[in-house]
């Protein structure tokens, strides 16, 4: 049997081109705000984790606060490296582990990364005050808000 005329193929190709064109336009406009989008997502994740704070391991963790100028990314790395984990009680282990995993994703580049030379004078993670999970998450959120403000300024 021979195939039918290629009208269907032409229609499908046109729809695909329109769809790809829409996606390309959307992705190019979002590329500039990838950092902002990620920061907003991280704040949302921290807020969601705060709902499960009673199901987190109560061990104290390094929680930077009032960090020196230009040390925000270094301090945020300390938050990401902290051993925040579920207490394996309450039945929320899966969602907690997913949220914690999302917190540890690498940040997109920011316009404030140009000041990398100052990172050598930043404190090490162990030097920061250690706090239980509730305070840890509060301080993480504060740092995220500060980084967003710096990015927009």
């Amino acid at each position, binding site marked *: *049997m*021979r*195939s*039918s*005329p290629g009208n*269907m193929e032409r229609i499908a190709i046109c729809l695909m081109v329109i769809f790809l064109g829409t996606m390309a336009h959307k992705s190019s406009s979002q590329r500039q705000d990838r950092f902002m989008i990620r920061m907003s997502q991280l704040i949302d994740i921290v807020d969601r984790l705060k709902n499960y704070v009673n199901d987190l391991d109560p061990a104290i963790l390094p929680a930077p*606060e*009032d*960090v*020196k100028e230009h040390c925000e990314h270094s301090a945020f790395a300390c938050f990401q490296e902290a051993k925040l984990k579920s207490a394996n009680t309450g039945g929320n282990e899966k969602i907690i582990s997913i949220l914690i995993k999302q917190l540890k994703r690498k940040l997109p580049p920011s316009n404030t990364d140009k000041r990398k030379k100052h990172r050598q004078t930043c404190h090490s993670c162990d030097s920061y005050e250690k706090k239980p999970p*509730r305070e840890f998450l*509060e301080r993480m959120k*504060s740092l995220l*808000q*500060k980084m*967003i*403000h710096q990015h*927009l*300024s």
Partner: protein
Amino acid sequence: MLKLSLPLRSFFLLQLPLLGVGLNSTVLKPSGNEDSTAVSFSTSETPGSLNISTLPLPEVQCFVFNGEYMNCTWNSSSEPQPTNLTLRYGYKNSDNYKVQECGHYLFSKELTSGCWLQENEIRLYETFVVRLQDPREPRRQMEQKLKLQNLVIPWAPENLTLRNLSESQLELSWKNRYALDRCLQHLVQYRSDWDSSWTNPWLFITKAVLIPVGSMGLIISLFFVYCWLERMPRIPTLKNLEDLVTEYHGNFSAWSGVSKGLAESLQPDYSERLCHVSEIPPKGEAQEGPGGSSCNQPYRASPCYTLKSKT
């Protein structure tokens, strides 16, 4: 700007509450956990006795108005005796901070009831330490730590403009006075004369997303159903058989509804490729094949051709 589809005849009462922030002070009352922590310092010479030095000091509430100035106030009437309490403040940075006294007190009934700080004294993302003290009893003091970034009250949006785009579309636009416009989120609600309450924002968002997505899904589904039906011609009923002769004059394609192209594509193709195969001559025998080919060739490729049957 925001484009909405709204009935024209309704009178729209638009409300623009800022997401999470409002002018209602009860919304922004600092909680003990998130925005402020308070520590009281007071001592008493005789344990258990009622001494003025043991009386707690009122809590200080601070709000940053649009990032332009900050007011830190306390309830001065809560004191048993009229007292001009003093306020000192500072910013915690790297484990140390310097406190300085308020340079612009606010008064209520000739008593200090607050402190006004100007824009260059406000640092939103550093821990703000405020210390309230009774000057007559230096041991009676209270220290609070505040997160100013959570205590900002932007001014309300201005110049709300409605533009009639079409019979069923309105465009809303407004201006913000906050320095960092991108830091603000807005929630738009509307209602008509017939609605008893403001629109549910989540319902509005759901409609704004689900309806276009659902419509696209329906269109795509209909497209695939059309494609499928196009390849499945309808079976003509026998009672219309006489129409084949009277109305369509024997034109089967038009009577059945099957397009000519589809009818041709359903015709069987009996064409077949035929290839001649010649036997490899035995070794040593010199024979010339048709066309004068060389004796040294062990195999002669013959052209293939297509035999097409006439239908």
